[in-house]
């Protein structure tokens, strides 16, 4: 007993005599690494926001363009002698395509999720879910290409018009956001508090009643989160939409008429303008609008998550 006590004493004495033991140094090194990474991240994010804001605000501050003029003006003609910066057609195009895409993808995604969790859990887990997740990995140019060679001809033959337009863009986008909606819905359905389903069945509810009155209402905030994230993705998608929407800067009268979105007009025009020109700055303003919309979407998602927790 005495001996072991002495040994312990000597051990602590050895440790105390070393000012920087190895484990301390390791700890500091790890901390420093994490702090540097987070600093780089914060600086990057802030520079992006700052850069877009400075460029994007220039037309309003020194270019003599009014905010209302940009948000509600219907004519976009920055290279004219009397340049006009009406971005309403693009706002309209962006909102119309992404909301319509969500309207198409949401029911499909929910039904797929319910099928995978409630009807055929085994098939869902082994075949369907990987297949749907695969959709998320396909490059957007492929979607655009498929849209251009399959959806646009189909629409052209079925409906009046050229086939390009908001409808074509929405369909392409709806396929692109389907994995987001489905995956989030599936996760929500799988994480349903245990016993809820049994509780409903035990009261003599049918499967349909259980799904529509218990499962859907309970998971609604998560399902909405999936939709909003899908809309956010659709709102920001440029390439695939640009390939099928026609890119005419005006508000279309029908879903089958050429239109444009915020992203498609930016990618189309950016290469043709010089940095610092009025036209270029106006495109940055559009980018700023996109950025602000993204903030709004993130905010809505946060709000929904808070409601889901309650």
């Amino acid at each position, binding site marked *: 007993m005495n001996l072991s006590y002495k040994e312990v004493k000597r051990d602590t004495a050895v440790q105390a005599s070393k000012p920087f033991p190895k484990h301390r140094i390791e700890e500091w090194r790890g901390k420093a690494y994490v702090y540097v990474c987070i600093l780089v991240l914060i600086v990057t994010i802030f520079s992006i926001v700052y850069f877009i804001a400075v460029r994007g605000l220039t037309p309003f501050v020194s270019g003599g363009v009014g905010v209302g003029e940009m948000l509600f003006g219907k004519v976009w003609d920055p290279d004219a002698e009397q340049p006009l910066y009406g971005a309403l057609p693009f706002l309209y195009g962006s909102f119309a395509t992404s909301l319509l895409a969500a309207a198409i993808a949401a029911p499909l995604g929910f039904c797929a999720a319910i099928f995978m969790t409630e009807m055929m859990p*085994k098939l869902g887990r082994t075949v369907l879910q990987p297949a749907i997740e695969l959709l998320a990995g396909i490059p957007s140019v492929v979607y655009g290409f498929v849209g251009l060679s399959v959806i646009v001809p189909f629409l052209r033959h079925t409906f009046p018009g050229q086939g390009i337009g908001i409808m074509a863009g929405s369909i392409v986008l709806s396929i692109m956001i389907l994995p987001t909606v489905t995956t989030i819905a599936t996760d929500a359905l799988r994480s349903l508090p245990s016993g809820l389903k049994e*509780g409903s*069945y*035990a009261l003599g509810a049918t499967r349909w009643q259980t799904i529509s009155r*218990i499962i859907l209402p309970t998971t609604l905030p998560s399902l909405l989160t999936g939709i909003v994230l899908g809309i956010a993705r659709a709102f920001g998608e440029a390439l695939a939409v640009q390939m099928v929407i026609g890119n005419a800067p005006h508000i279309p009268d029908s879903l089958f008429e050429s239109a444009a979105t915020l992203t498609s007009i930016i990618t189309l025009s950016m290469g043709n303008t010089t940095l610092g020109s009025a036209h270029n700055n106006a495109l940055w303003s559009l980018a700023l609008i996109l950025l602000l919309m993204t903030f709004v979407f993130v905010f809505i998602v946060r709000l929904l998550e808070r409601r889901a927790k309650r």
Partner: protein
Amino acid sequence: MSEIALYTKDLSVYYGEKQAVKRVSMAFPSRQVIALIGPSGCGKSTFLRSLNRMNDLIAGARIEGEIWIGNDNICDPQTDVVQLRQKIGMVWQRPNPFHKSIYENIAFGPRYHGVRKRAELDEIVETTLRKTALWDEVKDRLHQSALSLSGGQQQRLCIARSLAVKPSILLMDEPASALDPISTSKIEELIAELKKEYTIIIVTHNMHQAARISDKTGFFLLGDLIEYDDTQKIFTNPSKKSTDDYISGRFG
């Protein structure tokens, strides 16, 4: 002896190849409390769940044998499980209130079964809450979320919820094992009260609880019903040695 509410004949339940319940024949007299005891994994919960065909929901579960309620064999594939589950209510170990208001939790079942009138629903909510001694505690906040209730209150709400569809038999799977002692004693009082109107079959791990509240006790071991007799007899003078070993705590 009183009439029989429910009886099983050679009831076996399989999960895939594994036989979880082995040819159990048991009769449950009306308006009595019957406790099912036994070590974990002995098949008593599986047996309980098969009585209202909740095992249908488990992939790979298969029932053989007969379960008779009156003149109906509910193992018959023709049986309408929706009607069956209306007759046989069920309460679980963990309270599982729906994420709705207290009122809606109770009105949920009756709505399924066609009760639409507000006044009628109001009455069902009040009577079932009174029966479960919850009325005085929640009458001022019927439209608040059921999740704001304590665990014991939630469990009594779940009991009230199953009473709302007017069953004659209640199945309870360890209804008090997730609750504190005070809530437990409230549930036990409630069971004693409900016995006047309902047949109650309860699975419990708590020997004292089984001895306190039940009229008859069945002892399960490895899927077999070892002994089934009056609770008094089981706990004072069991006829099988393994029953004696289990209730005196020598294994299990």
